[in-house]
């Protein structure tokens, strides 16, 4: 462990450098711009000394030493580029390549391979050996994972990331010597989380995925860094896309460039479940129902029909928003609903009690935690929730923090969740009573009785917890309403930070942007409350609603009464003919997260930028669809999206790499003192409005655009009048192999789920 308080001075290649005591030589060199090649060394994982690529000469040592295992020492004199060192690297590469199949022309890793790069830089140009290479056939270990032993250089990164990083320990080494292979520890197949971390970390093409293998050459893709479309953790993912006859096809998601908080982490969903985008079931043309059957229509026809019917409906219209659409879309949707459609009947599928959280935080003037705080926290209290299943990145962060700086986790849960293994203290409580922990902690005997814990177990837990000088409190959807108030009020005075766990990529954003009948953006109390989602559906079923507009949601999956969807004039914006969409009178095909620009807010309140990565013919972002409807209804577009210089809604570019990005022409003209013309389809204008009007959202636009997650806050909001509606919260309980309705359209995710566990109920949205 590096000790930042003490420095040592050493000489590398004649240059004097300093590094914190305990730093590994390879890291000290890297910090000073001196590269030492490495295969087996991987920051954050245990040391191996196996590949011998990092051998360097150290004065007074008879043999060359591995820079990856040698800590710096005062006065050390190191040479990293002597003839001896260079020859050692060269010969290691030479014999490594001797048994290597050299099938680079067809290898997935070709062009992105550390062995290729290393050979290019340090390797020999000729092959000395003429004997036959060792061969083993390729194996498939899981629905997504393949292993090709001949390509494997046995760096053991995969084994370590699976064990140390994922805490799954599914991989091991079998046989010995030249016969060594990487192998699943249980039989010939992987019984694991299919996270694909092992594939990602593999320096060569030995581990490949069913989703990417033999699909493309890396240089044929364009890469766009955006935010994962699945759970509420908001991992940054680089989406690799190739052009195809339907626009473009996503072929890979990873985070090799380590942008974002998640470093190179992605879970199996984030990594592999993108195939729904090019699913055969995807609808790419507007549909109008005629005589009970969907008929393809043009956008103009469909939008005109919707506009006419909305006009007719007046306020007799319910709007259901989404946990997946961007902040700008959600903001625009509620603004349009409230100011143009003049309805307060707007809601969304709530997976966590964010309103109560906002009220509690603002009332106690407490701090919310960014996901960044999780890694740094010295102690974490986790009440309810199951991060290993529902927040894979959060779970990864907690495990890493325990491993790397002995973070203490206090788990309060009704079940022995997987993180119990990393927990310093675990307290099993009665299911449904998690919310009473704070009261019991404060000495409430009745609450303690409800928890079902005896003092022999409770006291040591709370004594240890009370001794923590700084605390991060994370809680799941078990906590609602007054439970959250009590929790925040109990721990806020101790300076704790709080994190409330919701379920989908922009669940928090939907709440922050006011997709509520009674709350405006920033949880400001609306003057008049509309109907909440279940009441809206009842009203629709009863025939009191003229129209129902569902934007990126699937309420029919959770609502048995089909009349709610059959009776009103139903407009659905979605990717698929979901349970809800099947009842639609007009279906408008929408793009999803990777096909548009905007921002999303993860469950910790970190605001991040979505960038458009791919494109599909025929579909449009919800932002554009809303505006088109608005325009057809004769609404003042400039009032909805205050762009400067009016152009028609059609003028915005909805296709191509620049769509939705900052308007280049505007930048150009403005820079020359000319009138700037921004497009109304540019969501950055709405983001500007959000920053100005939504408390806590006034973040640095520059940093945001530069790709840095910007923590939003809740502390400035007005807690007055925020009511708890605990009964409206329906957690999705997606688990590792489900992602609501969307996940159901991913063949890969379905295959993973079918292999690794009995199918789980798929929550909607």
């Amino acid at each position, binding site marked *: 462990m590096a000790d930042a308080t003490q420095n040592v001075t050493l000489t590398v290649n004649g240059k004097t450098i300093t590094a914190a005591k305990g730093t590994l030589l390879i890291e000290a060199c890297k910090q000073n711009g001196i590269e030492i090649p490495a295969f087996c060394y991987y920051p954050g994982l245990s040391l191996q000394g196996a590949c011998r690529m990092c051998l360097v000469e150290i004065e007074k040592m008879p043999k060359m030493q591995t820079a990856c295992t040698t800590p710096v020492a005062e006065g050390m004199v190191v040479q990293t580029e002597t003839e001896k060192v260079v*020859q050692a690297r060269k010969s290691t590469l030479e014999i490594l390549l001797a048994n290597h199949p050299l099938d680079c022309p067809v290898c997935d890793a070709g062009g992105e391979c550390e062995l290729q790069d290393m050979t290019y830089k340090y390797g020999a140009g000729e092959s000395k050996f003429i*004997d036959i290479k060792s061969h083993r056939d390729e194996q498939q270990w899981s629905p997504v994972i393949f292993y090709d032993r001949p390509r494997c250089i046995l760096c053991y990164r995969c084994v370590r990331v699976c064990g140390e990083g994922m805490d799954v320990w599914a991989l091991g080494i079998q046989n010995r010597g030249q016969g060594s292979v990487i192998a699943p520890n249980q039989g010939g197949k992987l019984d694991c989380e299919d996270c694909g971390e092992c594939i990602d970390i593999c320096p060569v093409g030995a581990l490949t995925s069913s989703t990417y293998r033999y699909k493309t050459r890396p240089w044929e893709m364009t890469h766009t860094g955006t935010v994962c479309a699945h759970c509420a953790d908001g991992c940054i993912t680089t989406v690799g896309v190739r052009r195809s006859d339907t626009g473009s096809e996503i072929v890979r998601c990873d985070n090799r460039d380590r942008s974002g908080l998640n470093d190179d982490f992605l879970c199996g969903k984030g990594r592999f479940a993108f195939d729904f985008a090019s699913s055969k079931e995807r609808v790419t043309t507007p549909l109008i129902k005629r005589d009970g059957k969907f008929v393809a229509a043009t956008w103009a026809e469909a939008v005109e029909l919707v506009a006419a019917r909305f006009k007719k409906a007046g306020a007799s219209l319910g709007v259901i928003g989404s946990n997946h659409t961007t902040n700008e879309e959600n903001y625009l949707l509620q603004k349009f609903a409230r100011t143009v459609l003049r309805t307060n009947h707007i809601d969304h599928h709530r997976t966590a009690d964010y309103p109560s959280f906002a009220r509690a935080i603002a009332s106690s003037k407490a701090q919310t935690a960014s996901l960044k705080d999780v890694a740094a926290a010295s102690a974490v209290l986790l009440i309810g929730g199951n991060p290993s299943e529902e927040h894979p990145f959060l779970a990864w962060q907690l495990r890493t923090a325990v491993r790397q700086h002995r973070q203490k986790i206090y788990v309060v849960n009704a079940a022995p969740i997987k993180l119990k293994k990393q927990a310093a203290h675990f307290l099993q409580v009665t299911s449904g009573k998690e919310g009473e922990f704070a009261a019991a902690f404060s000495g409430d005997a009745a609450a303690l009785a409800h928890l079902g814990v005896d003092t022999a177990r409770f006291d040591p837990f709370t004594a240890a917890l009370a001794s923590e000088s700084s605390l991060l409190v994370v809680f799941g959807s078990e906590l609602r309403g007054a439970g959250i108030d009590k929790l925040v009020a109990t721990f806020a005075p101790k300076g704790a930070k709080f994190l409330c766990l919701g379920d989908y990529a922009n669940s928090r954003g939907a709440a922050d942007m006011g997709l509520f009948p009674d709350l405006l953006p920033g949880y400001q109390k609306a003057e008049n409350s509309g109907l909440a989602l279940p009441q809206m559906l009842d009203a629709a079923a009863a025939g009191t609603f003229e129209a129902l507009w569902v934007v990126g949601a699937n309420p029919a999956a959770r609502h048995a009464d089909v009349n709610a969807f059959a009776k009103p004039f139903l407009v659905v914006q979605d990717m698929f003919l979901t349970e809800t969409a099947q009842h639609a009178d007009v279906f408008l095909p929408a793009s999803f997260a990777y096909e548009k620009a905007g921002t999303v807010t993860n469950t910790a309140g970190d605001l991040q930028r979505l960038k458009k990565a791919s494109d599909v013919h025929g579909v449009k972002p919800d932002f554009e669809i809303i505006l088109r409807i608005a325009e057809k209804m004769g609404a003042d577009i400039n009032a909805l999206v205050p762009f400067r210089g009016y152009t028609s809604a059609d003028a915005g570019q909805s296709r191509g790499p620049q769509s939705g990005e900052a308007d280049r022409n505007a930048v150009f003209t403005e820079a020359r003192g000319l009138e700037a013309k921004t497009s109304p389809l540019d969501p950055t204008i709405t983001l500007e409005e959000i920053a100005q009007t939504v408390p806590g959202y006034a973040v640095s636009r520059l940093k945001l655009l530069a790709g840095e997650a910007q923590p939003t806050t809740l502390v400035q909001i007005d807690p007055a009048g925020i009511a708890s509606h605990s009964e409206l919260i329906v957690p999705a309980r997606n688990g590792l192999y489900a992602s609501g309705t969307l996940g159901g359209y991913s063949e890969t995710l379905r295959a993973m789920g079918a292999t690794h566990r009995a199918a789980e109920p798929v929550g909607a949205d």
Partner: protein
Amino acid sequence: MATLVNHPDEVKIVSRRFGQGAANIDRYLELDGYKAVQKALELGPDGIIAEMKASNLRGRGGAGFPTGLKWSFVPKESAKPKYVLCNGDESEPGTCKDRLIFEHDPHSVIEGAMIAAIAVGSHAAYIYIRGEYRYLLEIMQKAIADAYAKGFAGKNIFGSGYDLEVYWHGGAGAYEVGEESALMESLEGKRGVPRIRPPFPAVVGLWGGPTVINNAETLASVPHVLLMGGKAYAEVGVERNGGTRLFSLSGHLARPGVYELPLGYSLRKAIYEVGGGVANGRQLKAVVPGGSSTPCLKADEIDIALDFDSTMKAGTMLGSGGIVVLDDQTCIVKFALRTIQFYRHESCGWCIPCREGTDWLQKSLKRFHAGGGVAKDIDNIRYLAENMLGRTFCPLGDAAAMPILGFVKKFREEFEAHLDGRPCPFGQHDAPHALPVLSH
């Protein structure tokens, strides 16, 4: 069961009880058994280590590290338990001496391990025996049980108040776990792969505790050191090489066998007098002096003393004391192939230079000896070996490279004689089907 041999030049110390039925604990007691450990309890740690240092006893496992010095590295205070480990993995080709100790004098190993434990303040000793030595494991199990039955091991040994548990453990068939850190992994139930050093076992060893690991012969010599006194023991050998060691004489000798000779004894005499000279009236071609991993000596290089320093000066090593004699009818290429086959088979595969190097050495030598050699092979073989040397994760890579390098350097003409599809000059050709198909 091995037959015992004798020669008048032998100085029998560690083999003193061979053939005397000393596996029986009562017989062992009659032959001064368990006296040294009682003396050790009186001497105490510092006293024992002083005797050990005076004895100039150097490790018999191969590296020849001074045993007393090794024990003195173990910290006196330790939060974790300390351990003593007997390395009985004996697997180096040409070496077959520890097995005789286990068979004829198992209690000497137990007693030596106990003394080591007392010296470093450890309360647990493990005796690790090579997996293939199953029959010896049974002898050792009984010996340990008998020692417990007499109250020599366990709680309060010899009424001294000192607790000392003795355990046995059987290997699973890997030469590599003879390497000290791989042995600890193996004993802990993991794959037999070595550990990163530093930290060294004396500081962080078995289950993270400070650990002394010694070869079985080293430990079996320890009671004799205490009984004779360190100085007297040292005087049996030569400067910096105290005492005797068991030399395993094998190969083309008239009287092969395990002989106990004082350190510093002449290699020439060991071959021609003790071992009875080259068998069948043939001439000497080469000697491998210290187990298969040590570079060979040619017939005219054998006028050296058998001690760690002299062999080192001669460009080879005393290693495990396995002296393998090759007569003039031996094909060096075939011998090199046989040697590398062993190391390729035994490489644990952890690091690239050894895993791939041994594989390509074997491939090249196999084809080469089968008559498929091309001129550049000779340099390639040398190149491979040179580029393994000093670069691997553990010394097995060196052990594989050194002998091959020696053969190519010293017997290049024999390699050349195999070129161009010529038949093996010694008629030791492999069957034609062994000739691999070349990739070009």
